[in-house]
């Protein structure tokens, strides 16, 4: 038994421990980086933060990706991945437009509900193929990524839905602010808080981590692995569906190519945010902060005058850097724990 173990640390040292964990956590590190980037951008251009438009864009731009990244994080935590969420977003975004055109006067809430539901069904297809078909998620969702995209391309063709096709009230939601906070940001934060609570404080949420951490052990523990994995995909799909509706409200213009490549941004955001690509660890908070970091950097680089190529390279470097950092930290921790064991 290792020598440095203890059962009940007194209250004070526990508070200290909590504070130290919080300071050392990935989430905190990313928030600090985000703050630094905003500070630099604001120093270069005051209006980045201190203008109505700047403040709104700062909050509004990452909102949709945050919702998708939360879904992707849940799927990745179970040691799976969903590449089809970008295509799902395109389907529900186009569906949103079509619903307003084909059923004039349809209640907005009903459209939101239908969009989310369709996303959930597309997620269910992925989840069922992965859980029952025993096919790796990477392969299944690579396939459905093309199938879903193909479906929306066939459905929409070269047709484009414009802002004028959708009700003013709906479009207003996309830019509306409550106490200077955009509505879409509020939605994203609500999604984040609910998902964060679920993952950290309920049995089914914790089981997501367990399944991703060691699938064999999950089986021996008698956890409902199949059902949980399907749930993760349904949730990922539903959030991508919701993101599609948000996309329609935010941009007003929808074509079949909406959300192309967003699946990689969502996965990238989760990885940057400390969600281990092999499952079992990380949090949706990290993923959401990762999304904010990714898109804030994207907006900052042009301000500093960095050319387009480097903007993409920076995103790539961030992802690789995050993974290398994770590997390094976990190898170091493993080594330390092992050496401590040998000494006893």
């Amino acid at each position, binding site marked *: *038994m*290792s020598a*440095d*173990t*203890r*059962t*009940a640390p007194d209250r004070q040292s526990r508070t200290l*421990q909590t504070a130290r964990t919080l300071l050392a956590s990935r989430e905190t590190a990313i928030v600090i980086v985000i703050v630094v980037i905003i500070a630099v951008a604001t120093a270069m251009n005051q209006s980045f933060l201190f203008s109505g438009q700047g403040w709104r864009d700062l909050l509004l731009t990452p909102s949709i990706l945050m919702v998708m990244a939360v879904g992707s994080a849940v799927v990745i935590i179970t040691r799976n991945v969903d590449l089809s969420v970008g295509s799902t977003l395109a389907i529900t975004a186009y569906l949103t437009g079509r619903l307003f055109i084909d059923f004039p006067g349809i209640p907005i809430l009903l459209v939101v509900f239908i969009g989310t539901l369709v996303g959930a069904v597309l997620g269910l297809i992925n989840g069922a193929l992965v859980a029952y078909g025993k096919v790796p998620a990477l392969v299944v969702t690579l396939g459905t990524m093309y199938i879903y995209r193909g479906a929306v391309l066939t459905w929409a063709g070269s047709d484009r839905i414009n802002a004028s096709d959708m009700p003013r009230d709906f479009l207003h939601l996309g830019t509306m602010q409550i106490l200077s906070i955009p509505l879409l940001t509020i939605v994203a934060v609500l999604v984040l808080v609910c998902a964060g609570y679920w993952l950290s*404080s*309920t*049995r089914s949420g*914790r*089981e997501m*981590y*367990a399944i*991703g*951490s*060691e699938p*064999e*052990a*999950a*089986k*021996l*523990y*008698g*956890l*409902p692995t199949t059902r949980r994995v399907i749930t993760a995909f349904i949730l990922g799909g539903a959030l991508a569906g919701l993101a599609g509706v948000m996309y329609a409200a935010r941009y007003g213009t929808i074509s079949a190519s909406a959300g192309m490549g967003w699946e990689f941004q969502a996965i990238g955001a989760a990885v940057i945010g400390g969600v*281990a690509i092999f499952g*079992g*660890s990380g949090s949706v908070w990290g993923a959401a902060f990762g999304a904010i970091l990714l898109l804030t950097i994207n907006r900052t680089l042009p301000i500093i005058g960095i050319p387009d190529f480097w903007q993409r390279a920076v995103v790539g470097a961030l992802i690789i850097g995050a993974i290398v950092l994770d590997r390094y930290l976990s190898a170091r*921790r*493993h080594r*330390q*724990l*092992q*050496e401590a*064991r*040998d000494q006893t």
Partner: protein
Amino acid sequence: MTRDESPPVLELVGVRKTFGSVTALADGSITVHPGSIHALVGENGAGKSTLIKVVAGLHRRDSGTFRFRGADAAFNSTAEAKNAGIAVIYQEPTLFPDLSVTENIFMGRQPRSRAGRIDKQAMHQEAARIFARLGVTLDLQRPAEGLSIADQQIIEIAKAISLDAHLLIMDEPTAALSGVEVERLFAVARSLRDEGRGIVFISHRFDEIFSLCDMITVMRDGAYVATTPTSETSNDELVTMMVGREVADLYPKDLAPIGEVVLEVKNLNSAGNFHDVDLSVRAGEIVGLAGLVGAGRSEIARAIFGVDSYDSGTVRLNGRTVPKGRPAAAIRAGMALVPEDRRQQGLVVEASLARNIGAAIRRRLSRFGLITAGIENKTAGPWAGRLQVKSSALSMSAATMSGGNQQKVAIAKWLATDPSLLIIDEPTRGIDVGTKAEVHRLLSRLAGEGMAILMISSELPEVLGMADRVLVVGEGRISADLDRADATPEKVMHAATARHEQSRQEASA
């Protein structure tokens, strides 16, 4: 004991389980009464683990009677068995490395307050209470990753206690525990027995069985042999019941002339795995590497072959130093390693027999960089014949062959490289008795032809029957070097558990 008053907790009669053509369990029978600790003994491969897995809901039995607490039972999943009140501590702990110690204990059964929220405080208190009962101090918040096997085992036991089970099954729980920890485990087991629970205890250590258990059931070759109260049997009687056949038939070892030193390992170290390993193997010699599961035998073999790197030390083959961490260099130098897990590491099971046999000599087979099926078949044919691989064609996929034939193919693949040293890890695991003898005859013949063989085996009779010399590994160190004539089961087991014994004596003093 209350054996005659209440119905047994567990009753198995004639339970049968087969996997494809291999019969893992032919006649599993055991009756466990409440308030009793029941030992289940037998050699490796006797079917104990399969029997346990049937009870735990991991396997479904093919036929036979299975009653739990007086009612017929058939569990389709581990969750069902668990809910019925069966807790199993497996030989190798299976935990969630990313989750905390507390979460590992309660996963799937966390205490909840209103609205389904996990009551983390209640969970921690309960965990602290269980650990206090076990007399263990362990940081409940730390992740399970990096915990020693002993600590992981403690978590498994805590899990079983928190389940409040009617039946507790322990599959070699002491294999990796030190003396103090074993004593603590026994104290817990006795207090659970006194609460009227049934306990099944699997162990290879007779001293533990005689001090802890009140009943003993012996199994051999997948079948029930006998059940006897501990007080009415002896060590020797148990061994006779366990082995029950003439060892000589199964281990046809011819004495071969011993030649020059082929493999020489000096001072090999790898933090966390093994320390100060010195060993040598001569031409024509079979050296057995014995020890408990997890003692570091496979790790040593993998380091010698270069699959894993090591911290310090040297490996020399035929007098030349073999660079570390490079299997390709080891193969060129004349080494071959037939790994423990043939399905995962030894074979490409989807590929044909011929392709598997040719796999390690692809460079030699290729003509202008191309390999044709014809060349492969021409090379593989003689090997398949020589090793008596039973298959309809060389193009047959390895996946459809029996375990014994797969093992022969895995060996043939390496023999085709014409090695001077063959390292073979668990040569007969999961193989039926007939094929076992064939594999043993093959090893004996290879040694006779002057090959040096390093054989790792958890089956004591196999080591004693086949090896010219037995090296015992205990907790990552070579704890004994015994000649064939000196090697007895007692000496090997003693050396394998020497440090356990020592600390146990310290604990009781």
